[in-house]
């Protein structure tokens, strides 16, 4: 009898325990299960573009950072773009345009007739209506001074296919130029007075002469093959020679020195944009001309 009583008592106690157990866990199961997959961030826009001294109109692609994937960017964008020349304080407000790309998608490209000045630093700001600002700064490389050395040539003046060499020293150019082109200018008939032949020069063949500048050696002998192919037998006469160097802004260098799209596409890699992503660069184009 007593064992039966004990068994019954045990059953009651365990039943009570189970009930408490169920209620406790029923209550604990009501807490939140929501999840926000997006970080709260102070990144608002991605900016892409370059300020180019050669262009009369500058362009800037502005992409709003969104939490919706695959949404076409054809709606009006909540953004005001302005450039500030930090050297002289001139502020330009850029105008928006909605571009339809070849693949049918859309994008907002802002443009401005801003004329880029050598050595100036520009701040490009993109502001949302709530005051959130994304910006990038870029400094246009300063104008170097070209010092054209005396030609060491054996061909007669105005010969269409000169031979020999000549050094050009770009004083103030302390970084490797992005691109070097040599232009041979030929006189033609009056209606079409000049014909220009461009010969690209490898920047690798250049070497800094001193810490004050960059020396490039013009090799007329080497260029003869290109020139002969372009104007050989036409009887044209050489009017002059010009060299153009394109110099990129100092920060236009990929981390690690490798242009690997897989790496550079990672957000934050190779970016000079604050409160956003992307890259806004600038380039200077500088020329020197002479006659042989």
């Amino acid at each position, binding site marked *: 009898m007593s064992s039966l009583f004990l068994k019954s008592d045990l059953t009651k106690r365990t039943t009570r325990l189970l009930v408490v157990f169920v209620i406790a866990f029923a209550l604990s199961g009501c807490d939140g*299960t929501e*999840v926000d997959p*997006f970080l709260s961030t102070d990144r608002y826009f*991605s900016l892409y573009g370059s300020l180019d001294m050669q262009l009369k109109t500058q362009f800037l692609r502005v992409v709003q*950072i969104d939490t919706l*994937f695959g949404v076409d960017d054809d709606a009006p964008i909540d953004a005001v773009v302005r450039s500030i020349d930090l050297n002289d304080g001139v502020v330009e407000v850029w105008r928006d345009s909605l571009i339809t*790309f070849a693949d049918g998608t859309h994008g907002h490209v802002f443009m401005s007739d801003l004329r880029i000045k050598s050595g100036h630093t520009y701040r490009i700001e993109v502001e949302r209506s709530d005051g959130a600002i994304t910006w990038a700064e870029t400094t246009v490389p300063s104008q170097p001074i070209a010092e054209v050395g005396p030609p060491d040539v054996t061909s007669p003046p105005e010969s269409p296919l000169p031979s020999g060499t000549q050094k050009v020293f770009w004083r103030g150019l302390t970084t490797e130029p992005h691109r070097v082109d040599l232009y041979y200018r030929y006189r033609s008939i009056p209606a079409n007075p000049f014909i220009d032949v461009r010969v690209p020069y490898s920047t690798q063949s250049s070497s800094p002469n001193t810490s004050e500048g960059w020396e490039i050696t013009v090799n007329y002998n080497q260029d003869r093959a290109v020139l002969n192919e372009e104007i050989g037998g036409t009887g044209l006469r050489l009017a002059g020679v010009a060299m153009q160097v394109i110099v990129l802004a100092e920060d236009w260098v990929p981390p690690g020195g490798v242009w690997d799209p897989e790496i550079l596409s990672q*957000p934050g890699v190779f970016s000079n944009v604050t409160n956003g992503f*992307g890259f806004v660069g600038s380039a200077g184009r500088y020329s020197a001309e002479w006659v042989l």
Partner: protein
Amino acid sequence: MKFGLRRLSRTSHRHSVWTSLSGRAGRVLVTGAAVLLSATGSNAQTGATLRGFVTDVSDGQPLIGVNVVLTANDGTLFGMATDADGFYTIAQVPPAGYAVRASFVGYLPFESEIELAAGELARLDVRLSPSAEVFDEVVVEAESNTAGAASLTAGLQSVRPVDIERIPVPGVSPDLAAYITKMPGVISSGDRGGQLFIRGGTPTQNAVFLDGMLLYQPFHILGFYSAFPSEIVSSADVYAGGFGSEFGGRISSVIDVATRTGNKRGFAGSASFSPFMATGRVEGPILPGSVSFLISVRESLVDDLGDDLVGESMPYTFGDAFGKLHANLSEGIQASISAISTHDRGFIVPTDDIPPELLGRSDQVSWVNQAVGARYLVLPSSLPILAEILLSYSRLENEFGPEEAPERSSKVSRSGAAVNFTYFMRTIDMKFGLSVHSITLDNNLGGQFQSVDDSKEFVTEGAAYLETDIKGIPGVRVTLGSRAQTFPSVGHSSIEPRFKAIWQTGPHQLSAAGGLFTQEIVGLNDRRDAGDVFTAWTVSERGLPAPEARHAILGYRLTPSRHVEMSIEGFYKDLGDLVIPEWTAYPRFTTNLQPADGTAKGLDLRFEYDRRPLYGHVTYGLSDVDYKARQASLPVWYGSSSVAFNPPHDRTHQLNVLGSLHVSGFKFSAQWQFGSGLPYSQAAGFDDYILVSDTFEEVDVRVEPGQERVIYGQPYGDRLPDYQRLDLSVERTFAIGRRVSSTFQAGVINALDRDNLFYLDLFTLARVDQLPRFPSFGIKMEFR
């Protein structure tokens, strides 16, 4: 009182081993075997050995864990517990007269006397009769008592059908998966997906064997079920780490399932029905007393019936079929043939939740396992050896994408043979074995995994192991082993030392295990796949080291009474040369691979109470898994050569509470699971990316549309919400005559209807939760 502890590991004659061993590894093993055999040979001249099989007299079923004890006139005890075949050996005892006793819970003890002469190899097969009475059981070896929720020894937990049947599952088809997923240290992909992460290891780092056959993906698409219903399981050894030398080819864990043999005395069977599945089993003698068969078939119904019960689509179909023939060919020779086939198909992310234009793909996944194996067990009459020969063939076919035109497929097959020997001596048991397998890997990945092209590979795997079980000191057992394996065609070879030590004194047990583990055949997943269900199997990259792990385990177990048991075990896994998907900002469905290292460490706590009418257990797992990725671009991206993160299966806290109560013939069960949030990668958003290259003149933003990009934050830098689920069930069995019974069950899964997140698609913002509140019922008819 002296105890001579003898026990053959229940898994020792299953699996593995070798033929084409590389020179150094082969010499080490052969030399070691020769030294040990010669050193112990003298014992064999003087001692006597008693051995045999213990079976259930009612159905001929081998009984596992039966304590067989010899008592000498001076009171000295020698004993051993039976293994998965019901086999025992008490080796090299002094020649004398002994009282023999075999006892097991739920059976009448067997008692007899025997006279053993010097050098004699005596055989005594024992048949035990079931009994409801409780008799004293002499436990000769604590390790034999490894069944039960808190019974953990050196990373090993043995699971018996009675353990499985305690876990409430929808329907009346208890399943090993439902048990394993409640173990501390085991993280599942949830109610769907069928993926298990064990103590920091990924699903493809776990080996699962069924009667010696390797099954690649045996867990069904709904997390309650696997290829192992309790009705076919005799025992399952779950090695969460530190497994012995007989196992290889995986770096995390081993689940070694042994199936029942069919009833050799009479026909028996069962059939069940529930909204989740229908099952059927039939077994019986072909030649009464010597040859039997067992057939089990299950097929899901949830695809047809589940929708109406829960009000949402349940697009899952799965099933399995198992068959086994077992024969006692003659005294000391047994043979069996097992075959299994499983199939799974479903939408991990139900497409009705996601607009097709945003989905852009079909998340349908399917896989099929097929395996067949033969096992030959020999007990030579003149040698104290147990020999086992295994032949097996298994294959997995895994597809991702629409059924009619899958985007990717991966096929892997493995066939081969293994021989295992156990040599019994006075203070040492020695196990050794050889195996050779041929593996075919056929991947058609449709441009996925750029580091692994669409390919077909043929690989030969050879392995050998030698393991010594040292039992010279009372209460202490030390196992030292070494495994050598080689993959000649890919130039990978390894030698892997292993150890295990157990010290038992009274109710206390201390255990430790460790070793080196390597894995040449690896499974690759695409992290964008929900639940990482699609797996491509391939050979680890040529010229690079294969993934490897070093395990260390230290545990303590206390059994203060026969009703209470508790254990605590700590583990540490040092993971090297892992292969994980590379991070990319492009929202594409392909992925590169990157190397990584890692560690997994943690602590398991278990408590079990078992005294009618109440059963309960509480298990808690504390875990910390850290990976260190070594993607080549990390120095540029993060400014350092590696990035540390917690992988998406790192669950810090895991708690499981189960209580069941028998009242008036009813069994009420309640189970609550808690898991802290898993890591995931948050994003800042999406944008278009334009490469501003060195040829800046080509960067015309008026022409270049850019490429869609996802702006991820720190990899796996945040945690998903906690997981909690409460399951309730009630069950009652009615006897209908002497041989027929029916069981009714009703229950509810996720009784609180908690929205446990399964998958959140960052790109579509579609959220898929685990199963909602799911009422279920089931009926089962059984005859015997």
